[in-house]
């Protein structure tokens, strides 16, 4: 295969307008997920939950694979797996160390279970692969509606608990002393995370969920520490990665996930470079006003 062939398979914009119309709903779903993923990612980073996201996504995969085997709604199966994992991690893993060991135990179990279900499933192999690496284009309209609804629910819920959750993420002891219901909030957050992961599994696949739930927030944190700008940037990065990935992937016959993960990664790299420059330039001047004030 020549370089031109590979290029042609990677990017092909023939009949682009018609294709665009066909996948309009997928793009909306990806856009909403990109925004929600970027927003919840800010808390995932602050609460040190990246590993938990990965753990939840493997159980979500098992749930989806089980649903595929039984011939029931795949999104529902994915949701069940996600929520079970999220609640278990929330209940048993209050402390970071407990949490990591529980995730480490759950994750291979979930993945193994999923592989078993897929091996038993007699249908098309593209469906199988899709759960691991994404299949947004093949999700039908009613399911897309469900994905969008779930994302909006998470978005609204996050905004309503924003302040107490920020307080709890920063310093759970002080937040509890100030009357923040720390335990309920942690569990609630895990449920929201579970919902977001279940939606992400449908769009970019369980193996790549981190690209929308962690990378955008990690990138935003590199360039800002404003409590307003970080979530806004993170949502923007998630949106650009998810929608940009679909738009680029559209013409080719390849899965969309690599496009999303690559854009997301490229944004992170750029932010890291900008962050490093800022730190180098700022170190000399940052302390000056402080010294002057004394």
């Amino acid at each position, binding site marked *: 295969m020549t370089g031109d062939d590979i290029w042609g398979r990677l990017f092909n914009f023939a009949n682009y307008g018609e294709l665009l119309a066909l996948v309009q709903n997928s793009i909306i779903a990806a856009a909403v997920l990109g925004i929600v993923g970027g927003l919840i990612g800010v808390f995932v980073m602050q609460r040190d939950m990246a590993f938990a996201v990965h753990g939840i996504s493997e159980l979500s995969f098992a749930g989806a694979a089980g649903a595929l085997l039984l011939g029931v709604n795949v999104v529902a199966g994915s949701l069940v797996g996600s929520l079970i994992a999220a609640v278990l991690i929330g209940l048993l893993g209050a402390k970071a160390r407990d949490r990591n060991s529980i995730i480490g135990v759950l994750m291979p179990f979930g993945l193994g279970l999923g592989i078993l279900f897929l091996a038993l499933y007699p249908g098309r192999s593209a469906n199988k692969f899709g759960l691991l690496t994404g299949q947004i284009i093949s999700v039908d309209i009613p399911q897309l509606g469900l994905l969008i609804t779930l994302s909006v629910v998470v978005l609204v819920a996050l*905004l309503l608990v924003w302040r*107490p959750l920020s307080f709890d993420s920063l310093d759970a002891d*002080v937040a509890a*002393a*100030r*009357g923040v219901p720390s335990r309920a909030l942690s569990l609630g957050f895990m449920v929201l995370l579970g919902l977001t992961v279940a939606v992400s599994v449908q769009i970019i696949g369980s193996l790549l969920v981190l690209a929308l739930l962690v990378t955008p927030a990690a990138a935003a944190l590199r360039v*800002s*520490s404003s*409590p307003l700008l970080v979530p806004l940037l993170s949502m923007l990065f998630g949106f650009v990665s998810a929608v940009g990935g679909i738009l680029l992937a559209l013409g080719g016959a390849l899965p969309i996930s690599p496009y999303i993960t690559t854009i997301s990664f490229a944004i992170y790299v750029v932010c890291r470079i900008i962050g490093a420059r800022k730190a180098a330039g700022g170190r000399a001047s940052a302390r000056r006003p*402080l010294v002057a004030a004394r």
Partner: protein
Amino acid sequence: MTVAPPALAAPVLEFENGALGFGGRSLWSGLDLAVRPGEFLAVLGPNGSGKTSLLKTILGQQRLDSGTVRLAGHEIRRGDRSVGYIPQQKLVPPGTPLRGRDLVTLGVNGHRFGPPIPRRSDRERVDELLDDVGATSYANQPVGTLSGGEQQRLRVGQALAGDPVLLLCDEPLLSLDLHHQRAVSELIDRRRRTHDTAVVFVTHDVNPVLDVVDRILYLAGGQFRQGTPSEVLRSDVLSDLYGTPVDVIRSHGRVIVVGVPDGHDHHDHHDEVAE
């Protein structure tokens, strides 16, 4: 402030015959304690003597095994906004998306659910608090880039947000340099003088606050002694408490406790001696 005038003031915090154990071991029992408005009580004692548990009891996060504890005349409630809490200094990791003023803002509205729409009244209150604790000059810098002392000043501001009648401090000076130890303890002292806020100050080293302490509660080995510093920080009193000869040495305005048995004190014994 809604407390009664100091002369006749009822206690802000009152333990009656309080007892608390941990894992089958009694931490303290028969504790009668009254802290009045504007009073500065230092709680001393080795690790594992129940200092932190005492704070948790006052915060309503732990129940007494027996006896009662009351705050401003009523039962302790969890998350009572009339109690300010200053934790041990835990450095905020660099890269945390918060500026200095956001830390204080959490004290003002961090418990509030609902859409995070900024209010002018909150912002004004935060400005006021920042000014109170002298943190205005670095209020807009990322918290993670501030020194431990600067972060701790912000935490004092955060704790004062609810206009507390009682300020609980859990080793707030730990790992601060002398300059910041003095600055932070002065902030706390000034607050109780201007606002009649009672202070319960847990520390393993009394020296940074020796000048401002009214009374001491010394916990050790399941027992306790209380009184003014000159009544408690004495060789005979502490020897009796520890059940072994302990020397209290006063030198250049500092108090040094020598000979605390190892079993009572796991690793910060030397802090207490050397600091």
